[in-house]
């Protein structure tokens, strides 16, 4: 029963971390499942003194493998992190503390090309009308509408494949 309790204590965080990183429920569930399956298997073969540390080590490697497979990048930075549990806590805290969706959207909006970023920020976060934005930018409404549509398409693309090189 101890292991089951351990599972209950940690599964939410493991899932949440994966979800925050990939923004895809199915992927997060797969990675969570993979992490715990490997953890349980390893327990059978060797004594483990610190379950939490071991679990987070597996989690780190699972995430690393996923990144390599999906993004085809070697990410040495992650391998060097010793306190991956700390990283996980930090990521989850950042996500939870940004209480509304707009704040959570900021890091992704910042990755847009400048013109799109400007219009998207004013439209989605500042909730300004197309007319107001056009006046502010000294452009016509068609420009704002077109740039907005393109910005949204770019934003959706980013959110579908949210990982950015250089991050964790």
């Amino acid at each position, binding site marked *: 029963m101890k292991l089951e309790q351990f599972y209950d204590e940690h*599964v939410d965080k493991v899932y949440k971390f994966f*979800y925050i990183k990939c923004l895809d429920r199915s992927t997060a569930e797969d990675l969570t499942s993979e992490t715990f399956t490997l953890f349980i298997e390893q327990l059978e073969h060797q004594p483990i003194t610190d379950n939490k540390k071991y679990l987070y080590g597996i989690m780190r490697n699972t995430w690393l493998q996923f990144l390599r497979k999906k993004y085809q990048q070697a990410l040495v930075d992650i391998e060097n992190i010793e306190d991956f549990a700390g990283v996980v806590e930090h990521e989850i805290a950042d996500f939870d503390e940004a209480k509304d*969706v707009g704040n959570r*959207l900021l890091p992704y909006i910042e990755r847009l090309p400048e013109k799109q970023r400007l219009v998207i920020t004013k439209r989605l976060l500042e909730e300004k009308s*197309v007319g107001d934005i056009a006046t502010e930018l000294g452009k016509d409404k068609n420009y704002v509408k077109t740039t907005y549509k393109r910005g949204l398409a770019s934003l959706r693309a980013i959110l579908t494949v949210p990982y950015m090189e250089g991050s964790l």
Partner: protein
Amino acid sequence: MNKIPRDVRKKLDSSYASIDPTFKANLKNQLFKENSMAKKQSSLKSLATYLRSTPALAVFAAIVLVGTTSALVATDRANVANREKVEVPAQLDNVLSLDDIRAIATKDAGDASVTGIELEKEDSGLVYKVKFSDGSVRLYDAKTGEAINPANGDELPANGLQGAISLSEARQIAQNQRPGATITKIELENEHGVVVYSVRFSDGGRVDVNAQTGDVVRVRGASNSGSSSSDDDSDDDRSGSNSGSGSDDSDDDRSGSNSGSGSHGGDDDSEDDDNSGSGKDN
């Protein structure tokens, strides 16, 4: 943040970042049930090794060991057999389509109309159970369409059976919501004006899939526990167009369309085709 499109908002909403309780429970069962089986077999192996070094008991112990192992294997086989007995299989290529069965049943119906079609596994094999508006029910062999017994149950609309997704797709979508659970019945029915595939599980669980869009409109866990679709943390990842993963936002998916992010003041708000995202981006 009313102007943020729903599909975008969903991804970053706290509820979607929280683990699905059904997934959590299923994974736990899977991990610890399998682990328990593995331990039992490992214990038996250790016992056998010990007894080999004690010849006097070896014969007696061997009989016990074989008996216990056989019981475990038999239990496992029985579980597999039970599942095979009731489970609607994943491979449905060799069964007639819903349209075919509807056409056959309609000829038998007379003035009555078809109100529901269920696919079930019986002892004799896969059968379609067709319900009519006059309350009668008729069974048909799912492969041949032959009536199995004469007919002795919200009516489907005239084009209600021309679903955009197939039975196999609906089955997969539902299975993805409840991995590992055994599907015992798939029913096409009208649920409050929405044509859905209602997929039932051996543990009492149920998943309703919109027959037109493939979106999940309801997930109910074992023993009638779990939330209904209105509170479901299902995001669009598990919608039909994505071949089932994740869960769906019931607000959008029940209607099969995005109705927009609410009213906006100011000019040009009608240009909010940002809501064209149907939540199926993934």
